[in-house]
């Protein structure tokens, strides 16, 4: 479903954040991107979201070169990908419920559909009883679950999570990873960027290891080795 073909991203004159990377992610897979900080994980995800254009090579989504998507269709394209970040990126003046509903509201969904879908997805992330809380009344793990609920609300084909557990303690970290595995089990492709060794080793799923912008290892049921 997602294919990087000899993709490079060079910042400035010669900072190769991504250096001739090629790999494919199939529908329904759970792929972890690992590597030290600065290895190029975030850049890779930004290329996938078309927040950056590759300096050379291609990124394909369902066999379409995403560089060729007309700018008017980029919002539609991005809705096929749900994103989760280390710093949650919730709207502080909106409740958990409203943060999730916001995505549907700006898409012009009908009120009844919003109520139904938001309740459903909040149940999935086990936050029903926290629905009326504001972000500053939630723990880090709860905030990240709201963010995941928000990423799921428009039923994307892929969830992209960039260091989602970076700010969490080990207990909440496991919580979030389990949730991502559950979502993957329901059929959504998951791409998880992390430099957390424990997370990867427990997961037992495909691991792509990046170093200095290059793929140095790509293993089914991988381990975190650097």
């Amino acid at each position, binding site marked *: 479903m997602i294919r990087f073909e000899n993709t490079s991203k060079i910042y400035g004159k010669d900072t190769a954040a991504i250096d001739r990377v090629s790999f494919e992610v199939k529908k329904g897979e759970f792929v972890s991107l690992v590597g030290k900080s600065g290895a190029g994980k975030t850049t890779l995800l930004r290329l996938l979201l078309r927040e950056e254009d590759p300096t050379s090579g291609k990124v394909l989504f369902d066999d379409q070169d995403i560089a060729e998507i007309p*700018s008017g269709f980029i*919002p539609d394209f991005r809705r096929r990908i749900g994103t989760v970040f280390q710093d949650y990126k919730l*709207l*502080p003046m909106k409740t958990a419920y409203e943060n999730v509903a*916001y*995505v549907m*509201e*700006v898409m012009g969904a009908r009120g009844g559909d919003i109520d139904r879908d938001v309740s459903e997805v909040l149940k999935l992330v086990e936050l029903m009883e926290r629905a009326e809380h504001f972000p500053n009344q939630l723990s880090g793990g709860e905030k990240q679950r709201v963010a995941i609920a928000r990423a799921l609300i428009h039923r994307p084909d892929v969830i992209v999570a960039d260091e989602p557990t970076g700010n969490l303690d080990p207990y909440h970290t496991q919580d979030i990873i389990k949730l991502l595995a559950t979502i993957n089990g329901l059929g959504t492709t998951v791409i998880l960027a992390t430099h957390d060794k424990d997370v990867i080793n427990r997961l037992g799923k495909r691991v792509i290891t990046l170093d200095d912008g290059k793929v140095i290892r790509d293993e089914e049921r991988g381990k975190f080795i650097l």
Partner: protein
Amino acid sequence: MFTEFKRISRFGYQSFMRDRGSSVATVFVMVIAISLVTFLMLFQGTAAFVITSLESRVDISTYFLDTVFEEEILQVRDELVKLDDVRDVQYISKDKALEKFLEEHKGDEVILASLEAVGSNPLLSSLNIRTWDSSSYLKVTDFLEESFGGLISKVDFEEREPVIQRLDGLTSGIQTFGILFTIILGIVAVLVAFNTIRLAIYSTREEIEVMRLVGASNWFIRGPFVVQGVIVGIVAAIISLLLFIPATLFLSGPLENLISGFNIFSYFLSNIFVIFLAQLLVGVILGMISSAIAVKRYLKV
């Protein structure tokens, strides 16, 4: 379209209610801006009153010889009224003049005693003439002296000539000053209000980034800020209106001593709709435009 509008309005209202700190700050600054504009409106009203009352206070008093009959004086009046330059003419008989004189000098023992010593009424009958324009006084006095010179004791104009000329200067002076004052203070008020709103929006730039990230269109991002600006404007206009009721009531006493016949409180009340409309307009337009401009910087796709 309607759902979109409803949602944008709700988002704006929610931000206004929830972001207390920034709402209070922007409303406060907006109240100052609106109050300045209101103050200037009241100032213009007061100036206009002073100008007209000064203008109507200046007139030509024509005193007739004691030998002239009332019928003759009334004839002169009829002739005067026919002139284009003349606004109105008031006849003051000998008796009325005395009555007025006694009224004006009620407590003054010396004057009353000397009046009694004279025995009879020493005052003269007169015509008080007001013209439309202070510059045409000379024309009227010339006319009087040419046609009725023989009946007239004196025309009390020469003494007032400098007053009239100074008044001309003063009138245009007050108006120029008022307009200049309005423009300068208005610009200051607008800039301060604009800057406060700009700062409030600057502090939400990360939220704007998140909104873009989850797929909100520019209208969904900008709309709520504009709605919020409108609410700030309306609330500030209402507060300003409520502030000016006690303020003008308090001022009306001292000001009436200064400018007799002018009550700023009743002036405020009788113009309350126009004033509130102006306050609303200033508040809403200022809030709306400031928000729209301020948020624009963060909307690049």
